[in-house]
C-alpha cells in the first residue's frame, strides 16, 4: 500500500515527488509516456516570472512569488541551468505605459522585490537591440530563465534518490475506491494507495473523471516557438515581454538558460490535446509580433520550431487542493502560466496539504541531493585533463555542437530514472540540442543506447513510443 501516488511526471508532479521524498512515507509517481518531462514541461518559455502578473490574493500570486525564490536556490543545489536575467515589459505607447504602471502596482501588492519603471534611455542601456518605438518598460530584476526539463528531471532524480518509485509507460486507465483507499491501474499494474495527487497536466480532467470528480475542464491552448542558435545570444539580455493586446498576451523574446534565444509563443485555443504541431500561420504570426519588439531576429539561425500546450482550465486560478467530490484525491490542475515559476512552491504546498488531510508525515533523518553530473565543456582545462585520465570516455566527444562526451551520455544512461530514447539523452546530457539538431551525433548516440541496453538498432526510439529511427538492415540482412 502506497501512502501517496502521484499521477504525472511533469514539473509539478516532480516537485511534489521531491518534497514528499523528505518524509517517511511510501510514494510513487506514474507517467504515461516513456520518459518524464514529456508534456508542457518540455515545451514552454522557460521563464521564472517575477510575480507581478497574477491578481493579488490568488494561489497563483502567492505560489509564483514563493516559487521564484525556491527555484533559484533549488537550481543551484540541483545543478540546473538557471540565469537571473530579469524581465522587461516594454511599453510602446501611452496605453502600454498605463498597463505597466498597473503591473508595477500589482507586483508591489504581490510582494515582488526590486521592480523599476524605466524610461527610454535606461531601457536602451539594458537592451540596445529593441525597436526604436519602445518608450519605457517595467523592469523586474528577480525574473529568471531556467531549463524547464532539466529542472523537472533533477527534481525527479532527487525524489528517486530518496526513495520515490517511478513508473514510466504507465498510463492510468482506471481508479477504484476500496475502503477509503484507491486501486489504480496503470501500465498493466495495480497500485493501492491512500492518497492520489492528480498532476496530469493537459489530461488532469480526464484523470479526475476516473474517480467521478471532474468538476473542472482543461482547455489546452497551443503556443508556437522559434529557438535560435547560440550565435544569436546577446540579441536580448533579459526576458522581454510586450503588453497584452486584444490578439493575445504578446510574444516574448528571451535568452534561454542554455544560451539560445527563444521567440514566442502565440496562443491558439480549441486545438486537440495531443496536437503539438507547428503551423506556418502560427510561426508567421509569432515572427510578425516579435518584430514589434526587435527587428534584429535572424530566423536563418533558427535551430528548432516547436509547440507546447498550456494546461489552461475553466477556472481563473490554479486548481490545487483536495477535491470536493472525492476525499484524499488532491488536484494539482490547471497549472497554466506561471506554472513553471510556481512548481517548486506547489510541491512544498502540496506536502502541507497532505499533512492537513491527515497523513502522518515524519521528516526523514537522511535526505540527500544526488551527486552533480559531469558537464565536460564547462570544466577548466586542468579539470578536463584530470577527468579524462580518470575516465577516458570523457575524452570522446560525441555531440560536436555542444561538445558532449560519451562519458556524459553514459552517465545519463546510468541515471536513476533511465532514459531509453535519443531525446531522453538529449534532455539529460544536452547532446543533439545544438545547431545540427542531432544530424551528426544522432547515429552515434543511437548506437550507444543500443549497446547499453543490448537491443537492436531498430528498437531504439527518437522520443515518444512509435518513433523508431531505422526500419531494418540493408538488403534484409539478419
Amino acid at each position, binding site marked *: 500500500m502506497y501512502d501517496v501516488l502521484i499521477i504525472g511526471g511533469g514539473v509539478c508532479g516532480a516537485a511534489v515527488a521531491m518534497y514528499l521524498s523528505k518524509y517517511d512515507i511510501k510514494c510513487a509517481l506514474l507517467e504515461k509516456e516513456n520518459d518524464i518531462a514529456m508534456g508542457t514541461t518540455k515545451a514552454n518559455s522557460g521563464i521564472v516570472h517575477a510575480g507581478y502578473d497574477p491578481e493579488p490574493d490568488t494561489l497563483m500570486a502567492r505560489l509564483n512569488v514563493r516559487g521564484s525564490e525556491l527555484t533559484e536556490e533549488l537550481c543551484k543545489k540541483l545543478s540546473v541551468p538557471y540565469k537571473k536575467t530579469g524581465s522587461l515589459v516594454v511599453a510602446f505607447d501611452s496605453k502600454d505605459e498605463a498597463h505597466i504602471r498597473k503591473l508595477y502596482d500589482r507586483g508591489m501588492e504581490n510582494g515582488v522585490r526590486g521592480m523599476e519603471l524605466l524610461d527610454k534611455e535606461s531601457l536602451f542601456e539594458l537592451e540596445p537591440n529593441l525597436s526604436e518605438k519602445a518608450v519605457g518598460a517595467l523592469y523586474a530584476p528577480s525574473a529568471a530563465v531556467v531549463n524547464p526539463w532539466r529542472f523537472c528531471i533533477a527534481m525527479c532524480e532527487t525524489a528517486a534518490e530518496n526513495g520515490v518509485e517511478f513508473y514510466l509507460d504507465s498510463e492510468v486507465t482506471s481508479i477504484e475506491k476500496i475502503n477509503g483507499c484507491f486501486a489504480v491501474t496503470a501500465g498493466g499494474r495495480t497500485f493501492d494507495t491512500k492518497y492520489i495527487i492528480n498532476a496530469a497536466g493537459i489530461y488532469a480532467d480526464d484523470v479526475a473523471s476516473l474517480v467521478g470528480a471532474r468538476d473542472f475542464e482543461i482547455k489546452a491552448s497551443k503556443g508556437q516557438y522559434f529557438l535560435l542558435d547560440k550565435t544569436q545570444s546577446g540579441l536580448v539580455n533579459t526576458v522581454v515581454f510586450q503588453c497584452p493586446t486584444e490578439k493575445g498576451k504578446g510574444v516574448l523574446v528571451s535568452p534561454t538558460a542554455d544560451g539560445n534565444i527563444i521567440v514566442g509563443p502565440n496562443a491558439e485555443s480549441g486545438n486537440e490535446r495531443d496536437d503539438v504541431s507547428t503551423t506556418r500561420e502560427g510561426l508567421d504570426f509569432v515572427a510578425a509580433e516579435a518584430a514589434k519588439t526587435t527587428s534584429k531576429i535572424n530566423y536563418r539561425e533558427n535551430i528548432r520550431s516547436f509547440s507546447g500546450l498550456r494546461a489552461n482550465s475553466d477556472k481563473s486560478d490554479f486548481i490545487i487542493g483536495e477535491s470536493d467530490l472525492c476525499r484524499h484525491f488532491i488536484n494539482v490542475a490547471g497549472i497554466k502560466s506561471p506554472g513553471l515559476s510556481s512548481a517548486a512552491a506547489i510541491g512544498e504546498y502540496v506536502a502541507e496539504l497532505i499533512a492537513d488531510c491527515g497523513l502522518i508525515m515524519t521528516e526523514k533523518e537522511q535526505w540527500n541531493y544526488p551527486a552533480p553530473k559531469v558537464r565536460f565543456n564547462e570544466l577548466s582545462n586542468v579539470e578536463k585533463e584530470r577527468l579524462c585520465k580518470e575516465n577516458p570516455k570523457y575524452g570522446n566527444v560525441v555531440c560536436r555542437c555542444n561538445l558532449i562526451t560519451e562519458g556524459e551520455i553514459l552517465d545519463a544512461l546510468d541515471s536513476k530514472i533511465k532514459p531509453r530514447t535519443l531525446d531522453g539523452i538529449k534532455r539529460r546530457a544536452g547532446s543533439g540540442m545544438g545547431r545540427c539538431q542531432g544530424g551528426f551525433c544522432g547515429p552515434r548516440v543511437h548506437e550507444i543506447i543500443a549497446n547499453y541496453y543490448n537491443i537492436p538498432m531498430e528498437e531504439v526510439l527518437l522520443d515518444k513510443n512509435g518513433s523508431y529511427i531505422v526500419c531494418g538492415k540493408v*538488403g*534484409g540482412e539478419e
Partner: protein
Amino acid sequence: MKELVCIVCPRGCHLQVDENTLEVIGNSCEKGAEYGKNEISNPLRTVTASVAVEGGIHPRLAVRTNRAVPKGKMFEIMNVLHSFKAYSPIKRGDVLIENVCNTGADIIASRDI
C-alpha cells in the same frame, strides 16, 4: 533529336543526339559523345552500393562495378550484392565478384577495409 544531360562528369553538358544517325552535338569530350550514342542505343550505368563485410571497422563495404552495365540490370545486380558477404582484409580495387550478372563487369571494393 533527343536532348540529354551528359552524366559522364559533373560538368553536365547538354547533348543533342540524332535518334537515327546517333550523331551527338553539345559534348565537350569524346566520352560525352559515346555516352550520347549509348544512351539512345543501350543506356549504361555504373552501379555503386555496399556489401556486408566481416572483420572491418564498419559493417558495410562500399563497392562498385568496374565499368558501366546495362541500365536494366541494376536491380538484378543489387540482389546479388544483398546476398554477398566480404571478409576483411580487402584492398581498394580488389575484385569481389567477377562478371556480375553476365554483364562483363566485375564488382570491386571501393576502399581498404
